[in-house]
């Protein structure tokens, strides 16, 4: 891969990392909001929504981190 391409991929991975963190943080807040719910259905909705957000955000961060590691080693 050329340096330009590596830099572009690195940029994309850094962006995904930031987005992933943001989405995961929201997932944690929604999960935390479970303690304010009253009925079982509300409880489950917050839990499922929170877990989905955490897994999307976490997944994006994990993928981005591994890409960054790979690209940095290639650069050196």
């Amino acid at each position, binding site marked *: 891969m050329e340096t330009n391409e590596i830099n572009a991929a690195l940029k*994309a991975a850094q*962006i995904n990392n930031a987005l992933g963190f943001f989405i995961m943080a929201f997932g944690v807040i929604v999960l935390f909001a479970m303690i304010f719910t009253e009925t079982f259905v509300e409880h489950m909705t917050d839990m499922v929504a929170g877990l989905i*957000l955490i897994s999307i955000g976490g997944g994006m961060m994990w993928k981005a981190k591994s890409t960054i590691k790979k690209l940095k080693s290639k650069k050196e």
Partner: protein
Amino acid sequence: MLAGIDYFIVIAYIIGMLLLGLYFKKFVNSSEDYFLGGKSLPFWAIGMSIVVSDIGALDFVGVSGQAYRYGISVGNFDWVGSVPAMLLAAFIFIPYFWRGGMYTIPEYLGRRYNQKVRTIASVTWILFFALDLGVLFWASAVLLNVLMGWPIWISIVATAGVVGLYTYFGGITAVIMTDVVQFIIMFIGGFALVFLSLYEVGGWDNMVDKIATMGPEYRNHFDIIQPQDTKSPFPWTGILFGLTFVMANAYMIGNQSIVQRCLTAKNEWHAKASMIFGSALKMFIPILVLFPGLMAVVVHPGLEDGDQALPMMIKSILPPGLVGLMFAAFFAGLMSSVDSLLNSTATLFTKDIYEPFIKKGADDKHYLKVGQITTLVLLLIGVATSPISSDFPGIYVAIQTFMSYFQGPIFAILLLGIFWKRTTEWGGLSALVIGIGFAIYLNVFKEQFFTIEDPFLYISWWSFLLGFIINVVVSLLTKKHTEEQLKGLVFSSKILVENKKL
């Protein structure tokens, strides 16, 4: 007013957006980075951004309200009103703009027709976008005022501060990536709302049965195709001619903020794929905004103002946490409309007005600075003009109506420009001017011409048709362009088979 955890979520969202936007500052080093994201973005982010920028918070509430009143036919706007146009854009128009290395649509019009057409199109857009900004600031302030209890002026300054900062520093990368976050949050909140509302009304079939027994005015609520003589603004003739053939195409092909997003793609495949992926996502939008409106017919029957349907459903159905998340997505919808307008207007001004007329051939850093300063100036104009909205409450609708006058004629000159070699500069110019004039005339005397309440679909079709005919007739009467002038600007079957750059 929101309280507790929901209040906290909206605040966290606003601060998070600001931080995220500022983080993108490190990716902006040239004017191409600022206006086209360094041509490095992936299709999925652009696709999500196209979908999100299309539904601001106002449309979100408006569509649910219309679904409450008119039923499922409102979904036509996201279904037939998107997919065919997005496929046409993906396979024919976007590759041309992409290969030509363009930044704006007026830039294409300038190369294909002449500088006058480019300037008219660009100046009109800049004026309307700038006016629209003030209206959107006001709408955001009212929303924050209702949700958080903040005074109007503090709300305006807060919105302008957050959106302004991330757009100023991050350019279009920040605009698109904040849209991605909004998309994910909106979809999760929206699906939770649909799921819980279905649970509340006892399932889909139960809801259909209940609505069917509610009276004759609900008889057509589940017909996507409305008869030609319907009382709703969506007869099938309007949907086919006005929406599918003209407005949808004008929106997806002739709208700077949409096309500019596609041009940020990392290669031609990603540019095309972003549109097609966007069209797939677009088909889910009615589920999120239309179904809650329909279910509100059962849960909250007899609402006087249909636009109350969605906020009421969110408050009565969603659990704490998700209420905040949905309202944060609402607010984000407004922010994304504002940031698109800011960035697109700055691009139009820098590329179509500043570069050709004020300072030609300056270095790239200079144009980057001009783009950023224009963003800042627009922000100030928006804040200063926002109180106009409170004095003239109908102004948002008025601006949207004015914008719709351009759709037909603009699409007519784009379509003929790209598909017909014989179209000339005078054909394009006269079609633009006469087409817009005709649309204004039809709208002023709409009671005399039309039987339906709000005939914007019909007006766009007839003004398109007239623009089209004028363009053909005048072009045939004037001197044709040389092959050299048209190189890379007119569609030929060669583009499909040859692999070379235009």
